[in-house]
């Protein structure tokens, strides 16, 4: 029997320090993170929520107007939580720049920041956003100003990207190829060259034919400048990764009751357990449970057909049809969720009925918080 995911005890427990909301794109991670943060603040915690690319109206409801990369207290008229609520939007480029500035000396930092290859890596490499979200999380923890940090994760194709991207970026920056390209004369480079032999020289030739000499030159300058700070860089990513496995952290997997989103959620759940990362449970987001539970869809449709024949009661006929639609949707969602729980019986789960319209203020978020808590 699947356990119900009960958020209130989790949010109230002072031992809960970090909650990570993850899941595939478009399932409502950001809104879930914000609603949990609001609820925790109203229950007395000092909370910061780190959002990534929130919908404009959601950002406005938290009083966020621009990316400024620092947590701001949420000040909204009439909002007086028992605790405190801070919110911020991640600026990935600025986070990366700050990190370079912290780890490299001023001169070296300038050299790195103006390198075209750095600009490519920091703005368009596919793992950068995930890496920077981790980095920012590490910083917030280190600041030790909040007793609960709730993090949204970048909108990615696959829920697993969040865990893998930092590793991928490290591999690129630390990779043996980039080393060989940057210092082909170095002894180690020569040794490797010998081993891989023709394959490699062919490769360098092919790569420079394709990507051009300038790019290789930029990459090599970048790697040399980056080399000295790389140790610190990787250590930091490693520490954040460890933090994610520590007892104060919990993962909340968010999924829509759709096959793709649930498939991703399954992968994520399995991965978390393989990595010994603490899973709180699954939020089945935006479900459509039937409210008028005693009226079967078939009866509603038969009655609607009768009414349509006479044409006397169009309103009642419409009500019956929309009820039948809703029953069909609810049945399907229930089937899909049952399939998930059969495969993962140990994962606690809560269904969050959809609001009929987008959230645009704190009241909307509060309502989602209530639904998350199963009220």
């Amino acid at each position: 029997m699947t356990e119900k995911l009960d958020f209130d005890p989790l949010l109230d427990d002072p031992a809960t320090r970090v909650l990570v909301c993850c899941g595939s794109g478009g399932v409502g991670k950001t809104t879930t993170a914000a609603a949990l943060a609001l609820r925790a603040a109203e229950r007395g915690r000092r909370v910061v929520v780190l959002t990534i690319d929130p919908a404009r109206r959601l950002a406005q409801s938290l009083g966020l107007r621009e990316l400024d990369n620092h947590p701001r207290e949420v000040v909204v008229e009439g909002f007086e939580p028992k605790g405190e609520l801070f919110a911020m939007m991640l600026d990935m480029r600025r986070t990366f720049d700050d990190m370079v500035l912290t780890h490299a000396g001023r001169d070296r930092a300038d050299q790195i920041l103006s390198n075209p290859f750095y600009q490519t890596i920091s703005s368009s490499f596919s793992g950068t956003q995930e890496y920077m979200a981790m980095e920012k999380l590490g910083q917030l923890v280190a600041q030790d100003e909040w007793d609960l940090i709730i993090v949204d994760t970048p909108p990615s194709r696959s829920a697993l990207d969040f865990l893998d991207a930092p590793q991928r970026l490290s591999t690129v920056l630390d990779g043996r190829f980039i080393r060989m390209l940057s210092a082909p004369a170095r002894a180690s480079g020569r040794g490797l060259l010998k081993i891989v032999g023709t394959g490699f020289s062919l490769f360098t030739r092919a790569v420079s034919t394709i990507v051009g000499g300038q790019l290789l030159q930029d990459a090599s300058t970048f790697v040399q400048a980056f080399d000295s700070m790389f140790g610190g860089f990787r250590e930091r990513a490693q520490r954040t990764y460890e933090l994610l496995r520590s007892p104060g952290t919990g993962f909340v997997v968010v999924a829509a009751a759709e096959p793709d989103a649930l498939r991703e959620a399954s992968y994520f759940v399995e991965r978390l357990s393989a990595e010994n990362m603490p899973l709180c449970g699954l939020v089945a987001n935006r479900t459509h449970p039937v409210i008028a539970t005693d009226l079967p869809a078939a009866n509603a449709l038969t009655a609607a057909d009768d009414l349509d024949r006479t044409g006397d009661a169009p309103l009642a006929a419409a009500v019956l049809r929309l009820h039948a639609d809703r029953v069909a949707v609810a049945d399907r969602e229930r089937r899909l969720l049952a399939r998930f729980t059969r495969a993962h019986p140990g994962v606690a789960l809560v269904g969050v009925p959809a609001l009929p319209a987008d959230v645009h203020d704190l009241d909307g978020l509060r309502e989602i918080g209530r639904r998350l808590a199963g009220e």
Partner: protein
Amino acid sequence: MTSWTEELTRARLHVVSGKGGTGKTTIAAALALALATGGRRVLLIEVEGRQGIAQLFDRAPLPYSEERIASAPGGGEVHALAIDAEAALLEYLAMFYNLGFAGRTLRKMGAIEFATTLAPGLRDVLLTGKVKECVNRTGKDGRHLYDAVVLDAPPTGRVVKFLDVTKAMADLAKVGPIKGQSDGVVRLLHSGDTAVHLVALLEEMPVRETLDAVSELDGADLRPGAVLVNRVHPARLPARSVPVAAEGRVDSSRVLAGLKAAGLDLDEFTLEGLVDETVEHAIRVQSQQQAMDLLSESDLPTLELPELTDGVDVAALYELAEVLVAAGVR
């Protein structure tokens, strides 16, 4: 809802993008079936290594080759191809260098992963290059092998970067095989042969991203095609009742009388439940309408596809294709 235009009918490459979670792959597949209807041969391509097409058509992962995956009404055929950047790069290199065994070594060393990481634009150039080759390929009779190609492209956030090969090439070598190849790609993507369709849902974020993508496409001199609105919830209430009901005012005595007339004798609790469901439905229909109004700013042909309560299976793809055909897709 407006319909498919003559101009779109002339396009041979249909690029389908949309915000993540909007059902872009489903719609791309339905569009391929619709275009194939009446006896045409269509190629459906994916580029993100997700094997989304195979999952959708309920079959084993696609190899790097063109396979027939479905028949369309009237003798049409849909073929599918999952393009893999690594394989495409090796294919290129093999065309210009005699790689043989070395190609496999490169792959084993992770060299290709590295080259595409070093120059993120390279991956896109390779993928679009292969797409172009499929679009332009001719058979023995000199006619195009495929009447149309549908590309399940990256999501709206990345699609312009993906298609803007000119910009990607600015970072890459100014001469050489890839450069020659990419000039042809640029010509195709910016011509009347290509249309970039955007899949949207009637919700705030997807609508905004769609509008942003339209202006980004315009800015990059790429041609936005149609907006394909997915999962439109059927409006059951008479239009005039919607605003009132959305405010929570549903005449429950009238509903009750109607239900009685149909022989349904329901308790208070069920009646209240029906009223609540009606209010939620009305709010949803209203916010859909607002989203639709906002979308109309794009001034593009806008086609609606219904929400499928039973989920998406192969039969549902044909159902969606029929809707597209009825809206003029050919």
